[in-house]
């Protein structure tokens, strides 16, 4: 607890010079808000893409492991997914650049040609594939094991009686899942998704490696001009910074800290509320 307070305190102390500094000293020359704004936007955008992609897949994986797969394979698969959660993020970044990004370029071309009227896919297409869309996908793959691990635990705790009762009434397997498993596990899914969101917000190196950055706020997911994210920006700029720039970066780190703290707190609140509720049974 002391450490947590310490983290906040030291970040605030180091960020104060940046907050007090005149606008033209901050990198970019337009003040702190103008500096952090696009970064914040990029962070949220990447995290939201990741969440939209990852949540349904994670729930499907959890359902597969707990309800569909034969018991013997299921535990092995669960172990496999846990292992994947342990792979260092930098490896995901490597893979994102060298494997995923080139393979996504044709898809981007197709999206630009056929769905170009949607602002999300306006183009022009990036030649390297290192776009916001790719970064979001890499993030999605990274948070997939985390969300599915938590969801799996919740699904496993569904009382067998509920499930058997549903089956005994003649429900098909899907009806059983819809009637017994999903209502019971709903808050677990929400909590898991928010934990994944917290993880995606703070993810650094995968983004720093995959995304080709050029500032500015844009919703265009497939062009080469992308807003960076707070964490990636810190990782990219910090080794070469000094003086007030360091304090600015720390201030942006503080913003990130506050956001993830809030998200995590909300997630824990949702999850804990459920556990208290089920404890009463």
């Amino acid at each position: 607890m002391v450490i947590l307070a310490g983290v906040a305190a030291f970040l605030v102390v180091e960020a104060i010079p940046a907050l007090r500094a005149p606008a033209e000293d901050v990198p970019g020359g337009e003040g702190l808000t103008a500096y952090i704004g696009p970064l914040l936007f990029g962070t949220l955008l990447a995290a939201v893409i990741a969440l939209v992609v990852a949540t349904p897949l994670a729930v499907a994986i959890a359902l597969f492991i707990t309800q569909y797969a034969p018991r013997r394979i299921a535990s092995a698969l669960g172990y496999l997914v846990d292992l994947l959660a342990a792979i260092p993020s930098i490896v995901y970044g490597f893979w994102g650049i060298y494997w995923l990004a080139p393979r996504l370029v044709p898809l981007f071309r197709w999206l630009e040609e056929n769905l170009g009227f949607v602002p999300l896919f306006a183009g022009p297409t990036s030649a390297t594939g290192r776009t916001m869309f790719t970064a979001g996908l890499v993030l999605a793959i990274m948070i997939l094991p985390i969300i599915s691990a938590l969801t799996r635990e919740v699904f496993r705790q569904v009382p067998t009686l509920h499930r058997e009762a549903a089956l005994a009434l003649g429900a098909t397997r899907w009806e059983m899942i819809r009637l017994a498993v999903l209502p019971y596990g709903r808050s677990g899914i929400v909590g898991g998704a928010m934990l994944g969101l917290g993880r995606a917000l703070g993810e650094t190196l995968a983004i720093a490696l995959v995304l080709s950055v050029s500032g500015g706020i844009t919703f265009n997911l497939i062009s080469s001009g992308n807003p960076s994210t707070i964490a990636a920006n810190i990782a990219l700029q910090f080794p070469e910074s000094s003086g007030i720039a360091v304090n600015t970066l720390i201030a942006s780190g503080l913003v990130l800290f506050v956001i993830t703290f809030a998200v995590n707190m909300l997630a824990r609140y949702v999850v804990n509320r459920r556990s208290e509720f089920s404890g009463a049974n």
Partner: protein
Amino acid sequence: MTTSPMRVDSPTGSTPSGRGPVRQTRRLPRWAAAASFAAAIVVALLLGQLRDTHIALLALGAVALGTVLLYSLSRAVEGPRRATDRLTTCLVYSAFGLAMVPLVSLIVEVVRRGAPRLDGEFFSWSLLGVVGEGGGAYHAIMGTLVITGLTTLIAVPIGLMTAIYLVEYGTGRLKRTITFLVDVMTGIPSIVAGLFAYALFALFLGPGVRLGIAGAVALAVLMIPVVVRSAEEVLKLVPNELREAAYALGVPKWRTIVKVVIPTAMAGLATGVTLAIARVIGETAPLLVTVGIANATNFDPFDGRMATLPVYAYYQLTQPGVPPEFAIDRAWTAALVLILIVMGLNVMARLISRFFAPTTGR
């Protein structure tokens, strides 16, 4: 495909109770699912022959076609409820398959690209004075070991004490607050932990400081909550009878904890600590900020920059120098070694928990 094959589930004549007509359900035969997907694959392959299409697109198309085929078939024969059931089964299976594609390709890719440089030189050379070909990651591996060791030294005592407090002593509001905060701390972005350690050391030693110990502090911030959570779970599993037996013999509480509770939970604690190490050993961002990178071997965490495996991989990839391919090869090998270490630690944790599990004797 036709709808001709049908089966009657429970034959009418031989119902066990023998009372009245049994409701007949028309079901598709067992091979229907396999057959419709086989048909879809055949169609997709034919299409692929006719037009030059991407292999991923073909696979997706085959799965979608098979699903639609099976759904309409099932709807026609078995009715909408079972059809929906089959549809969701297909969706869940294909979502699972879809999720496995990137995960498997990741491992294949890293092994393929990393394996060529996995030789003796990689483990015995540093990068001091190396330009172009050759060179290794000896300094980075040593740096990782030193920093991770320090992290463990900091994080394990604090984490264990917190867990013991929570399980054995803590009550009421304070306990709940600490549990909650530990949970939230699990979600601290790693780079924020790095910034914290940097800010801490910069306050005392001036800006621009890069020390191995700062990296260890940053990693400890990330590791403590993991240790607390796992140790707490394990300590809770120690049967209360053991504690009560010790109290009944007049053993004071602290001796009970040291002599009874901790030895009983030892295997679980070791597993938790191993997993926690595996968790932080691959962290890049905090080390990038606090420790930096060096080309020479440095064993002293209190003196200047050190190289660590993840940061090493990062810099070899992003600033490969000229010609780039050798450094990029080294980066992939470093990534492979990192994965191997993490996997090894995970397997070790499994083995510890399996072989040293306490015998409950019931």
